[in-house]
């Protein structure tokens, strides 16, 4: 058995056998109908799906997400009306408010998950798409592309837009107990940013992006 595989050429190995990242089972790669995901027969971890990853579609989604990014972060996501006075809060002001009171671990966590993470993710995907469009020439283009792909997992894990969207609903209900709460332009922009990013992440396929380096 060892001999059989030792004599195999590298690329044969790469194309015919795939290893499960969770349990290391060797699985023979088969063609899949679209929209179907191959699961590991032993531990049910997702192994691969049909690459559905259109570069132009990702570019369009990426540009719209970045266009929404600034209003989502600069306009208030919640407005509070209390005894005639109006208070507003943007995402960044929320993070700064807890940091000012000495809770910088909390502030940084909020800032990273709601502002920095999504920003890095969008800029990274935009650069990757542009690099692919430029032809991924050997040299700095390929090096930068690899550098960005290596960090993609981290960037997408830091992005928690969906949780933030739920959190302003929860805050609004909690505060409605003693004051009137209004949603602002920021709320709309932030929700749209979340939706566009969600579609972008569905379109994006990391293994497909890596495989562009093979040819």
């Amino acid at each position, binding site marked *: 058995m060892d001999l*059989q595989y030792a004599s195999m050429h590298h690329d044969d*190995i790469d194309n015919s056998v795939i290893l499960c990242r969770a349990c290391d089972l060797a699985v023979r790669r088969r063609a899949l109908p679209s929209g179907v995901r191959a699961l590991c027969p032993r531990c049910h971890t997702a192994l691969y799906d049909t690459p559905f990853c259109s570069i132009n579609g990702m570019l369009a989604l990426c540009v719209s997400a970045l266009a929404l990014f600034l209003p989502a972060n600069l306009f208030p996501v919640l407005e509070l009306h209390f005894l005639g006075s109006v208070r507003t809060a943007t995402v960044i002001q*929320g993070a700064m*408010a*807890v940091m000012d009171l000495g809770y910088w671990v909390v502030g940084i966590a909020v800032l990273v998950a709601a502002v920095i993470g999504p920003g890095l993710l969008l800029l990274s995907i935009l650069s990757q798409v542009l690099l692919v469009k430029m032809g991924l020439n050997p040299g700095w283009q390929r090096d930068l592309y690899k550098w960005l792909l290596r960090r993609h997992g981290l960037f997408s894990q830091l992005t928690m837009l969906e949780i933030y969207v739920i*959190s302003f609903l929860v805050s609004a209900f909690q505060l409605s107990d003693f004051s009137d709460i209004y949603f602002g332009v920021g709320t709309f922009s932030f929700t749209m940013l979340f939706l566009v990013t969600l579609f972008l992440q569905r379109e994006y396929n990391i293994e497909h992006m890596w495989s562009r380096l093979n040819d």
Partner: protein
Amino acid sequence: MTDNVQTTGKQMGLCLCPVCKKTNPEDAQTCSRCGAHNQARDYSSVQKSWALLITAAILLIPANVYPITTLVNQGKVTHDTIFSGIKHLVHSDMLPIAIIVFTASILVPWLKIIGLAIYLSAISFSLPVSKRRLMAGFHIIEWIGRWSMLDLFVISLTVALVNMGQLLDAKPAPAATAFALVILLTQLAAKVLDTRLLWDRLDLEDDKY
């Protein structure tokens, strides 16, 4: 060799790149595609994961015992722990919100810590637990873990909005930092663990019988 025989990459002398998922020969030092360090198994990951998990479990106590927010309403100061905050929500007829907050702030962290502890014990002490069920649990833990951030987002928004001196003022309290660290450490504990180790154990037991 037929497809039905379960062969691991290790037995074939192959190794999956942890970063780009390319299959490399086991003896290769670095991945041929992305240049990441190649390692057939990361045995030290169990210790690292245990260390992070135990720290998180210890921090879970102050996170639940100490108040997470301080509220001043017309001169009256109230401290709320995670649990008393949820009780308030139930009493003010906001049951759906209470369920969301309960899930994100109590259920998810506890499930995560207990789940990871069972998972790590199964590797460290070869516990007779169904490996498949453990793996399913692990995927759930990976996915829901981030939802604990909800409470921190709510606190930050509330603090920014509600600051009107003695009339109405909301501030975070010490448990907030402990809770943030619990989220961070449990996410890291799940991330560093090399889950292939659990399945190696399964193979060893199969070989015995």
